[in-house]
């Protein structure tokens, strides 16, 4: 065997065992009736699971919630992360201090984040509603209208630091001369930002967006810790839906079909995003 294959052999074997095999198994599951409660009656059902899932209003609802969550969270994180990165870059006072603090949330156990906010925002016991009511504002953070938005805010609290980290490094690596040239040419701050900084940060932004978006699709802990999908099913996300189908109702076949449809949706989105960013690139 060629030397280079020996180097990757351990990884390949291990990944085949813990990923390829489960993936194939999931593929198989998706085409079978497989209930944990009826293990003696496992049989092939063709596309039936896919049809069931695709026509299940709660699956479509969960998909919709997840898309809203991903879109809302990632775009807020992008805007806030970029703004904070620019602020940190310009204000040299406090820089190292605030940088260390601002990066902290991304390392915190997500279930802990979920539980902290569950109690911080709780309508009767929470500190934040308590103090807000003192200045005459009453907000039901986990009511039917706001619950999904609150989960988005929690995700923003935890993951904006990731964007910040990427953009700080991106800004630090930018060459200085275009800025000096822009100053000599008399360009104002906004022009400098939109015509110099933003285009030069573009590849970093695309990578950060993709990583964050793919990660946000997996949101589970906040839902599990706070709303359990409610009120109603207004915060049921796709991961929580699959968890329910597979481990509450023990319908493994349908859960696998839902997971495969999730991956398909993600793949399509990634391909679109990459295509779009390449087209943008080519246009320039």
């Amino acid at each position, binding site marked *: 065997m060629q030397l280079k294959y020996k180097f990757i052999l351990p990884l390949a074997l291990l990944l085949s065992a813990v990923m390829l095999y489960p993936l194939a198994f999931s593929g198989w599951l998706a085409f079978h009736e497989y209930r944990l409660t009826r293990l003696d009656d496992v049989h092939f059902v063709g596309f039936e699971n896919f049809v069931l899932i695709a026509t299940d209003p709660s699956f479509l609802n969960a998909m919709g919630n997840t898309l809203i969550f991903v879109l809302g969270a990632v775009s807020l994180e992008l805007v806030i992360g970029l703004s904070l990165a620019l602020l940190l870059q310009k*204000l040299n006072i406090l820089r190292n201090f605030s940088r260390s603090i*601002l990066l902290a949330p991304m390392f915190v156990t997500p279930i802990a984040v979920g539980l902290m906010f569950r109690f911080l925002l709780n309508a009767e016991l929470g500190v934040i509603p308590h103090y807000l009511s003192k200045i005459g504002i009453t907000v039901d953070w986990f009511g039917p209208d706001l619950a999904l938005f609150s989960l988005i805010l929690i995700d923003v609290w935890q993951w904006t630091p990731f964007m910040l980290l990427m953009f700080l490094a991106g800004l630090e690596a930018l060459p200085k001369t275009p800025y000096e040239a822009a100053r000599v040419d008399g360009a104002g701050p906004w022009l400098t930002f939109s015509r110099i900084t933003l285009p030069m940060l573009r590849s970093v932004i695309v990578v950060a967006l993709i990583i964050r978006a793919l990660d946000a699709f997996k949101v589970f802990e906040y839902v599990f810790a706070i709303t359990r999908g409610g009120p109603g099913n207004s915060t049921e996300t796709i991961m929580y839906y699959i968890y329910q189908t597979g481990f509450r109702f023990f319908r493994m076949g349908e859960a696998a079909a839902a997971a495969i449809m*999730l991956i398909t949706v993600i793949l399509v989105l990634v391909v679109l995003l990459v295509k779009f960013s390449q087209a943008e690139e080519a246009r320039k």
Partner: protein
Amino acid sequence: MFSFRNPISRAFATLALLLAVFAVLFPFVWVFMESIKPASLGGRPDLWVFSPTWENWNEVTLNSDVPFNILNSFAIALVTVLISLLCGAPAAYAFSRFRGFESARYSILAAEMMPPAILILPFFLVLYHLKLIDSQIGVIAAHLTFVLPVVTWFLIGFFDEVPRDLENQAMIDGYTRFQAFYKVILPAVRPGLGAAGVFGFVLSWNDLFYALLLTGNESRTLPVAIAGYWTFRGVELGKMAVAILIAVIPVLALSHSIQKHLIRGIGGGAVKY
């Protein structure tokens, strides 16, 4: 690059930054306060008005399963990371050095991004049949699905930065390629190995999804234990706060130590700044 020369805009900018710092710090401060509140006052929204006590801390560290959960979390994360480094480092080196691995390199990234939803069902069923539900082995196997790709991807960027001439030199000096790898290249990426290890450790330590479904009394990890407090709210809030702090503090300390290596690792040699 412009800076805030105008004192008013400078003041606004500073204010915005302080606001962000406050927003980040506030939950931590609150959870600490909750942890030293007397149990009788647990869950009352007032932040400051109480006489602090360590009863929650004593209760959790001496009289609960939490120390056992910590041990489980620690052992699982450690073993996962060690296996990942052992298998990931040579592979990351190969991806960084040899021609013909360009697509393999990105399949690692794809593996890293795989939603756990599709893997958990087979894991559960296989472990169920092997009678390995509620065992550390099962969780370690499950955690390898994301820690192994992350660690491998993380290391590629570090290997990319080691000049190829270094192993060429070692091979001319009389060593085989494999000897050159572990005698010269591995020591040169030691900071990267440390950072990748810490990052992988944090990911495993923080996982709830797999641990929730694959562990039981014998192997319960800290995040699952924390999640267990939520049903008893109010009375148990102080103890939950303690468990959260115990879960969060070591991870924050560890991650702070690898901050400057994070970017190169997350970029995995794909982001060129």
